[in-house]
């Protein structure tokens, strides 16, 4: 299906960590007053997830919610659910000052797998990758561009960036993960 297209068509590079384009996901950017109960309710209704704490990531049966800033969340839903979720949000937030947008197509997402995921990311971001707890989302710098990283477990990391620089970020990660570059400190 054409609407499942991703910017890199599922590219993959195998080094001492495997870097691959993540499976397609719907992404919704939601801005609003997060302390307003209405937002939490709407988010729960469409994803099943609770509102995350700052820098947190929560999951529900229909999606995940990542904290982006004090007034912004990023919702991940199944790719074919984006429009419904968006409609759901908008109708529930009728009358509440907010902004909800489909941002699926403006992002590229990567998955890193292997024992060295923390280390490979530590080559491209100034975040302390040694201590970053799983399900903590850090928006940061990835080499020369902005992006977000989080770990879902010790051997799986996720990276999201803008789609126009998807190829760049992929290449940077693949280079960092290339054999012979093992640092071996974490």
């Amino acid at each position, binding site marked *: 299906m054409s609407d499942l297209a991703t910017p890199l068509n599922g590219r993959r590079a195998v080094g001492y960590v495997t870097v691959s384009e993540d499976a397609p996901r719907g992404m919704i950017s939601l801005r609003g007053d997060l302390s307003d109960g209405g937002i939490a309710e709407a988010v729960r209704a469409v994803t099943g997830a609770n509102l995350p704490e700052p820098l947190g990531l929560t999951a529900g049966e229909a999606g995940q919610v990542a904290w982006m800033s004090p007034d912004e969340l990023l919702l991940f839903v199944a790719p074919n659910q984006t429009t419904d979720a968006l409609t759901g949000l908008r109708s529930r937030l009728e009358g509440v000052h907010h902004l909800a947008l489909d941002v699926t*197509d403006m992002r590229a997402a990567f998955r890193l797998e292997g024992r060295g995921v923390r280390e490979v990311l530590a*080559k491209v971001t100034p975040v302390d990758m040694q201590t970053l707890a799983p399900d903590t989302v850090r928006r940061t710098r990835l080499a*020369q561009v902005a992006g977000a990283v989080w770990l879902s477990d010790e051997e799986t990391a996720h990276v999201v960036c803008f*789609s126009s620089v998807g190829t760049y970020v992929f290449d*940077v990660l693949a280079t960092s993960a290339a054999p012979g570059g093992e640092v071996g400190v974490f």
Partner: protein
Amino acid sequence: MAHRLATGGRRIDRSRRLGFSFDGQSLEGVQGDTLASALMANGQVLMGRSFKYHRPRGPVTAGHEEPNALVGLGQGGRFEPNARATTTPLHEGLRAQSQNRWPSLKFDVGAVNAKLSRFLPAGFYYKTFLWPASFWHKVYEPIIRQSAGLGRPPEGSDADRYEHFYHHNDVTIVGGGVAGLARALSEAQDGKRVLLIDQDDRWGGRALTDGMRDGATIDGQSAETWVADAVARLETMENVTLRLNLQGTGVYDHGWMTAYERISDHRPGTEGPRHRLWKIRTGHIVTATGAIERPLAFAGNDLPGVMLASAMRDFLDDFGVAVGSKVVVVTNNDDAYRTALALHEAGVTVRAVVDARTSVTGALPGQVRDAGIEIVTGSGVKATGDQVVRSVELCAIGGDGTSKGRISCDAVAMSGGWSPVPHLWSHCGGKLLWDDARAFFYPDANRPPLGADGGAMVSAEGAAAGDLTLSALTQGPEEAPMRPVWIMPEKAGPELRTKMFLDYQNDVKVSDIQLAAREGFISVEHAKRYTTLGMATDQGKLSNINGLAVLADARGEPIPTVGTTTFRPPFTPISMGSIAGEARGEIFQPLRRTPIHAWHEENGADFEPVGQWRRPYCYLRPGEDRHSAVKREVLNVRSNVGLLDASTLGKIVVKGPDAGKFLDLVYTNMMSTLKVGRCRYGLMCSENGFLIDDGVVARLSEDSYLCHTTTGGADRIHAHLEEFLQTEWWDLQVYTANVTEQWAQIAVVGPNARKVLEKLGGMDLSKDALPFMAWAEGALAGIPARVFRISFSGELSYEVAVPANQGRALWDKLLEAGAEFDIQPYGTEGLHVLRAEKGFIMIGDESDGTVIPQDLGLNWAISKKKDDFIGKRGQERSHMTDPDRWRLVGLETLDGSVLPDGAYVVDEGENANGQRNMQGRVTSTYYSPTLDRGIAMALVRRGPERMGEVLEIPGTDGRSYKARICDPVFYDKEGVRQDV
């Protein structure tokens, strides 16, 4: 003569032999050798030539402070100049070349400089080469440049790759000698996250050579045992990271550090990066970087074979290499006696120990006496030889150098005492104290560099802190006080002083510093820059203290009053490659790609960089050049239909109850009155009033707008909006989002545009349903789309935005549907020409950061009704309202030719500075395919008031162009074509 001993050598494995070459000659060393030890094992002490006088030089140290033994390493894409032989691990096949000599290391023509050295004192070049004036650049400078410089420049691209690595911890300890290890243990036991690094490939520092020799103990254990034990304990601790071959190179503010890891220099061509630059963010930095021995300033102290005493015993202990077979030790302290003992034990003849002190009583000298080695007290030396030292002449230390006898030898071990290594401590402003008795600067613990919280960011430990013998930890032989000696002998005359080298690499001698002082270069910083003391690749690690002392003496002031020069990173030079890291080739910078980028690449796009995007300038067909391609593309748009990838245009959603109010503040025109479903062209200015961006705003709903920006403007303008929302008008209820990349945007432009789109089906795009400056949402060919009827070409035009991942599909469908109308993509140049023919301005061409909208005749887009908008106040200033401002007009050349890019309109006469007066400039100039002649826009003084006037525009091509002022709209003045 230098040679390998039959036994010994802690670092080497004699069973593994390694072939290498030096200046083309094949030689053999063993595993564990450095290039320097391997060369000396082969009898080769002469390794290079000095910078200025091209004097023969051999290694003077065994480590990172080496100023002399610099070589060119490797070949082709792996060639590196100025590599220190003393820290270059030997590997099979290593190829090294000596430097700064011609034709050969032994016979160097440049060595004539040494003969002329009397005429080439410090700073001689400031005093001569003055006449004739043109000779400096044409004659003298090239000769000086050729004779200066060290290694050969690398050529071409680097065959290796590099990377960075960020590390975070509580404490970073630099130096894994006993002091660093002990500190690591105590910090680790406190539960801190500790990083302990050492530049060497083994732990233990000097304790392994020095501590093992005289039976000193650490905590009651032998040094070797203690070190092994400490490392073993640290290795078991979760919170400790231990790294060898990692040099702390720079200390920066807020606990930030760089460290330099050499990964594959000793196995070139293997997988993985060559160097890795660590970027460390740490809570506290400990410098346990030890101490460096100082040379003694005696005449001939730079001859090959004259070496630091500690280096000589390192070569012996670590590599089983004796630098000579008959050695004289010259010292002012007890430590050098360890070298005498080491040599003696290894069977090397020690001809004498010459000690500057008049009475020598300590334990170590005692052992030397017991070994039957002669100790000459109260004395100094002068060394003689040619390409290696041949003998020393003894003299009284307090005298003028009158010879008291000669001792023949082939190596001299010298020691002027030790200095703590203060570099990292000092990089961020840590202060030093002077210790008179031991004659060194050491960190002042009360004035450390301060961190972000105002607390001490760095502390020093062990020898680096001035505790040379680690008094709290180690129990060794008592050492008697040293006697500071800055010039040997103290009353040496000028003849001798011109042979006493301070800075070996840059050939700075005692006489040079004294000359500098005489000429008033008495500030230590002046003396440095006048003589180049400490400016060589070793950054004065050996020379600075001696130089300072000589300067202090010349000034008649104490050393601490003179002070040191500034310590700057890096600790030792690091490769540029490591600084650039992974950023090379494809990933030198992010290259931004639109969803249609791949199609452009496959279809002849001639790209131009626009910010980090690459946009097709035009699409070249076989046999076409840029000019003919652009012409074809433009004509095709005017007569058929063209396609433009406009995805890079910025798209910002602005939503909220106050969205209209906010946009009224950021645009010069009124946006709150825009109707839902309609579009309006808008301008944005800076507070200075200057035009910063333009674009079409579409009102999406009662409370939301979509603002288009220029390609370069997307991020900048989004940031500009957020800045005002967050920091100035935070009471406004508005959210913004930069959705530039969510949408692929394709402009379908030309008389046949509607026909093509109608073939795709799904939306009513008729003039009535979607009039000019309206937009609609729907689906085209099954793809959800927003269609804007806006035009930057003056033609019937639709901009279609679809979700980015379907952009390519839409593009393909448009090409397919448009085939029968000869649809063709066009590039940025075609876009520019089309808009110029219509007199539309382009941000960056008609505007340049100094232009206000009023200059461009855009007053219609500046609301008079609004009390305020960003830039309004700025535009009220006197210079902005000056009627003489240059304003936008069209220009047509009288002969139809194309005006040169960037040309100026001249006026009569000259200004007060003798410059030709100007009255305007060309902002855009093109050949118009539609009109088949040159067209241009220009900013001209009072331009619009001067229609019809003919102006003179000189080109740099020697021609002078004549052009008439006209309306900037060259084509379809009534605007009927776009509104069909």
